[in-house]
């Protein structure tokens, strides 16, 4: 739209810096701890940077733009639910302290150690599905954004960014992901708040923004007490519940916590990341609220991008594009690595017979194939697809509720069994799918039911199959 040659140079320089740093650190000994956990050398602040870079893309853009319509009020309330959920998980220490005490590497390993092979494979398959769909949704939202930024078809740009992310993830693993995250955060952390300020100014300042929010609030107020409401207390509580479930079981969080150099670093790094998420959700809410005044006709990711382009001064457009590239690539690389790790460690290696367990070198080969596969599949399903949100929320809800039930029961309940673990994933997913797609209930009812059903299935099946499957530890 208003991209100048200088902006292309800024973007090219950015890509070159990221890929050279990513590939530069790859020239090291190849072990699973090196590739997956960066030799457990990550310090507190670089860990926080990695949390920020990875989770921002998902929170700000996928959930905002993927929903089709922009609802800044929902995002503003959800910001507090997000903060509360991640702070509770952070202070509780389940994702940060528990895996380190047990000296484990992945979230799947924790479930596998407690509930056996089958539960680990189900977890791996479910979570890989979540991340591949998440990557697809990320790709679909960003390709619509870059179509606005560049003014032409973004196919080449998207392919280039995916390629860069794949190359540095495959070559350096977690080391590259963390080091490039620092570069990404450096740019993202300036440009996103600044563009939020500029779009607020373009919309007419804080008062105009507030008028917009108050209008949405007045419209939503009569139905706020009902379960169907998007912004009522029930909806906020259910969001909080799901964010908490996600924080307790998502593999990208565990991977970071396990690669920190000390327990303290992983604990504090997670808390810093958690607080920054409120900022992220609020900035995207501010841009979305301004979109109504700045680009009223556009919708979804395009409205987001148009507002940014229309309000950001001309000289900063290149940097703004670089920041968007940063959000996209850091999210992608972390999720590619997570999928690669799950497909190799939690699925492929578990399916191999006991006497054919692969060594470190083979594991890394599996991991690389997994990374490339996830990039390929997510590109195919994500590019130009608009309808990923329904499937994605299904997978997210099922995996988060089942995963949280498994993790919590695994840590605190000695009677939990593998039948309970497998059942909790399937019960949550089945309830959500039935409520949402067959009985056409609202999202709130389906999601709340999924969480309750997961925990109930864990309890019931563990008690019923206690003696038949395994002896309680």
């Amino acid at each position: 739209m208003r991209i100048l040659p200088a902006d292309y140079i800024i973007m090219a320089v950015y890509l070159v810096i990221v890929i050279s740093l990513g590939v530069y650190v790859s020239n090291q000994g190849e072990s699973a701890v090196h590739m997956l956990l960066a030799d457990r050398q990550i310090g507190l602040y670089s860990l926080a940077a990695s949390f920020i870079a990875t989770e921002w893309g998902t929170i700000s853009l996928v959930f905002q733009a993927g929903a089709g319509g922009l609802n800044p009020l929902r995002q503003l309330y959800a910001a507090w639910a997000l903060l509360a959920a991640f702070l509770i998980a952070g202070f509780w220490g389940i994702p940060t302290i528990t895996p380190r005490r047990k000296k484990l590497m992945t979230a799947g390993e924790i479930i596998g150690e407690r509930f056996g092979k089958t539960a680990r494979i189900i977890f791996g398959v479910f979570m890989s599905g979540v991340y591949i769909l998440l990557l697809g949704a990320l790709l679909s939202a960003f390709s619509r954004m870059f179509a606005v930024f560049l003014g032409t078809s973004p196919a080449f740009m998207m392919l280039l960014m995916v390629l860069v992310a794949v190359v540095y993830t495959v070559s350096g693993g977690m080391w590259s992901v963390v080091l490039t995250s620092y570069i990404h955060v450096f740019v993202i952390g300036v440009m996103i708040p600044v563009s939020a300020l500029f779009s607020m100014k373009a919309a007419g300042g804080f008062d105009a923004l507030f008028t917009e929010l108050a209008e949405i609030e007045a419209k939503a107020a009569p139905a706020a007490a009902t379960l169907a409401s998007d912004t009522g207390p029930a909806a906020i509580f259910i969001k909080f519940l799901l964010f908490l479930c996600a924080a307790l079981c998502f593999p990208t969080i565990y991977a970071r916590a396990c690669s920190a150099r000390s327990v303290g670093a992983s604990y504090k790094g997670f808390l810093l990341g958690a607080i920054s998420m409120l900022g992220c959700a609020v900035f995207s809410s501010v841009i979305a609220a301004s979109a109504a005044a700045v680009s009223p006709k556009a919708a979804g990711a395009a409205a987001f991008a148009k507002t940014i382009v229309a309000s950001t001064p001309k000289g900063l457009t290149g940097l703004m594009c670089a920041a968007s590239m940063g959000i996209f690539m850091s999210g992608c690389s972390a999720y590619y690595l997570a999928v690669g790790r799950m497909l190799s460690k939690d699925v492929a290696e578990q399916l191999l017979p006991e006497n054919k367990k692969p060594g470190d070198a083979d594991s890394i080969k599996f991991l690389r194939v997994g990374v490339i596969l996830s990039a390929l599949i997510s590109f195919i399903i994500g590019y130009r697809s608009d309808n990923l949100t329904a499937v994605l929320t299904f997978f997210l809800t099922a995996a988060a509720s089942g995963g949280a039930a498994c993790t919590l029961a695994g840590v605190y309940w000695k009677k939990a069994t593998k039948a309970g673990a497998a059942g909790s994933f399937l019960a949550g997913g089945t309830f959500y799918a039935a409520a949402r797609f067959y009985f056409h209930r609202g999202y709130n009812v389906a999601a709340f039911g999924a969480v309750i059903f997961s925990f109930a299935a864990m309890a019931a099946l563990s008690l019923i199959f206690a003696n038949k499957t395994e002896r309680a530890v």
Partner: protein
Amino acid sequence: MGFKMFCEFTIGFAFGSFLCIYLNVIMKGAPEIIRMLKSLRLPVSFR
């Protein structure tokens, strides 16, 4: 009135808290990154 205060507080808190975290992460993260790169024993020395 309550809603306006909520909006003001949320937006203000978001900008303030993020600024603090960002400055900390960038300023204190840089020496960490250099230390981590040193620990990698790369072909180019950072001394």
